[in-house]
């Protein structure tokens, strides 16, 4: 045993001096990480939980951490998630990774966790409490690049149809403001109408079908993900020419795009957040427990699929799922190195 330990020390020392990798300040093999998740009711969240589970199981089996359990609240309510976080504190987890129901309503519980010496990392749905780490998504940028892309494709501009998400939700506001900013930058475009698609194909299809008769000629549809396929169906049903519809990395959207591409060379782009961001959050928490110095505000890149990557993107997406990128410990380290 002693020999083994000294061997371990020797290799560690070797690694530190020779390879000049970042030294591990603390051992995390006895640390327990929990995921507090507020909602599991759509394909993105299911993929997110699956990524987390796969990654955490592997980390536990290789002895990097002692536990990586996922907890989802039964109902998508901030008060319930606050109680859940307090329960996780009681259960003695060393780090809590949060996808929050509300950016502010969990702050009290998050503060309790920090005060108890627990590392709190929030991602996707981030919390504003200063003691927590935030892995945020630049949703505004996600709206802007859609209009930037269209500007490159359509020299003459024209009328856009906007499909929004769920009214009153932070993400919807952010993407919408990004699209508005994009339209302000490229004034050849005008938003002719907007509907709420609730990130669901069937809802989007119904909403678009309802507004189409009153619309002038639409050159493109800007979206928030999970609504592109429904919009395409609505245009087809109304017998109108298919505009450029921005997709959101869902399997059904990419499949439809591939069919159109094969049939008539249809071109568009697709952008969304990879659900594997949960694995990044996991490794960020692990790195913080490891004693690494990690900035509190992190921005996660989104996943964009262009015309050329379509085949590859579709092949990597499970039927019914969302295109995904999962982070390994090394990916996360490289990412943290890049933002330092």
């Amino acid at each position: 045993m002693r020999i083994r330990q000294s061997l371990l020390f020797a290799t560690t020392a070797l690694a530190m001096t020779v390879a000049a990798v970042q030294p591990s300040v603390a051992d995390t093999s006895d640390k327990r990480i929990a995921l507090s998740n507020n909602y599991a009711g759509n394909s993105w969240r299911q993929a997110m939980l699956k990524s987390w589970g796969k990654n955490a199981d592997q980390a536990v089996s290789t002895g990097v951490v002692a536990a990586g359990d996922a907890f989802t609240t039964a109902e998508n309510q901030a008060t319930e998630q606050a109680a859940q976080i307090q329960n996780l504190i009681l259960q003695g987890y060393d780090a809590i990774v949060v996808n929050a129901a509300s950016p502010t309503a969990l702050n009290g519980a998050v503060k309790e966790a920090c005060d108890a010496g627990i590392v709190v990392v929030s991602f996707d749905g981030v919390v504003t409490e200063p003691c927590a780490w935030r892995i945020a998504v630049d949703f505004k940028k996600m709206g802007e690049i859609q209009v930037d892309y269209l500007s490159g494709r359509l020299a003459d501009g024209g009328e856009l149809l906007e499909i929004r998400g769920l009214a009153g939700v932070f993400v919807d506001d952010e993407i919408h403001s990004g699209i508005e900013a994009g339209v302000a930058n490229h004034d050849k475009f005008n938003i002719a109408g907007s509907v709420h698609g609730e990130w669901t194909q069937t809802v989007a299809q119904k909403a678009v079908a309802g507004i189409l008769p009153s619309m002038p000629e639409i050159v493109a549809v800007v979206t928030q993900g999970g609504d592109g396929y429904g919009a395409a169906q609505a245009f087809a049903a109304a017998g109108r020419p298919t505009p450029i519809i921005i997709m959101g990395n869902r399997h059904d959207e990419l499949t439809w795009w591939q069919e159109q591409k094969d049939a008539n060379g249809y071109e568009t782009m697709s952008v969304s957040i990879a659900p594997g961001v949960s694995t990044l959050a996991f490794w960020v928490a692990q790195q913080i427990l490891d004693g690494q110095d990690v900035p509190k505000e992190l921005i996660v890149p989104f996943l964009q699929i262009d015309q050329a990557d379509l085949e590859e993107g579709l092949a990597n997406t499970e039927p019914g799922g969302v295109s995904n990128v999962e982070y390994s410990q090394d990916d996360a380290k490289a990412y943290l190195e890049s933002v330092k």
Partner: protein
Amino acid sequence: MNGLQFFTSARFWRGALPALSLTFVLLGVFWLQPRAMSYFGLNLLFNLAVPIALATIAQMFVIAVNDLDLSIGSFVSLVACIGATWLHDTPLLGIAALLGCVAAYAAMGALIYIRQLPSIVVTLGMSFVWSGCAVLLLPTPGGSAPDWIRALVTFKPPYIPMPILAAVVLALVVHFALMRTSWGVLMRGVGGNERAITRAGWSVLKLKMTMYAMTAVFGILAGLTLVGLATSADANIALRYTLLSIAGVILGGGEFVGGRISPVGAVLGAMTLTLTASFLSFLRISPDWQIGAQGAVLIIVLALRAIVNRMEARR
């Protein structure tokens, strides 16, 4: 009635059931998570139960006059929003708005009584009004709780955790006011026998307005406690409280009709509901089953209640 008879009487069991269910769940939690058996642990387990207990008491006032308030959840959310914005930035405006809320609730009680409208419909309608106001006041989640509220809810008294202390004080104060004063008898009388109260020369209108105003007062206390615990607000922060508060009243031994309520039971019921959720999460029950399991706990307690009711009927 001698001692033994008392312990087998329905009255005793009706009162004891909420306390027994709470003890049972609490023992379960301690068994699963011994860490909870401490000042710190009890604080964490119960601090979010305090606003729920207050909302349950608020609901109880309405149930006492045979009505039901489906707007309490959105009302508490609105109060939380007022607390995190106006009360923090311009306290006078905040206090005025809260007083306005009490007046609005009293007016709602008057409307329901004078026009003989079903309270479920009126309060359901009002829930959208409260939600709308909350969204207008705080379109995106944010704001911050006034420091004095924050200090009050995070106060750590020696030996007894604040949430326990708050629950005991709340239960005793309301119990005394409603069950031990002549004013309380009148209030419950509106639910028990409205005609008798009218015949005795009391204005049921005034009594109902008072009860609705009391609901608003406790709703406000719930909202302010909640915003103190959460540190900032969200227009949807307390929507779950509507059903939780009704379940809490019934779990605590109250009845939907007849002015039969129990303030102590209602507080115990609210705490049991909160604790059940923690218990199930400590058990590592999959979230898909958790709502069902929570429902099952409610049904078990209500089934026991039905047995108690049968005992009463047999007498």
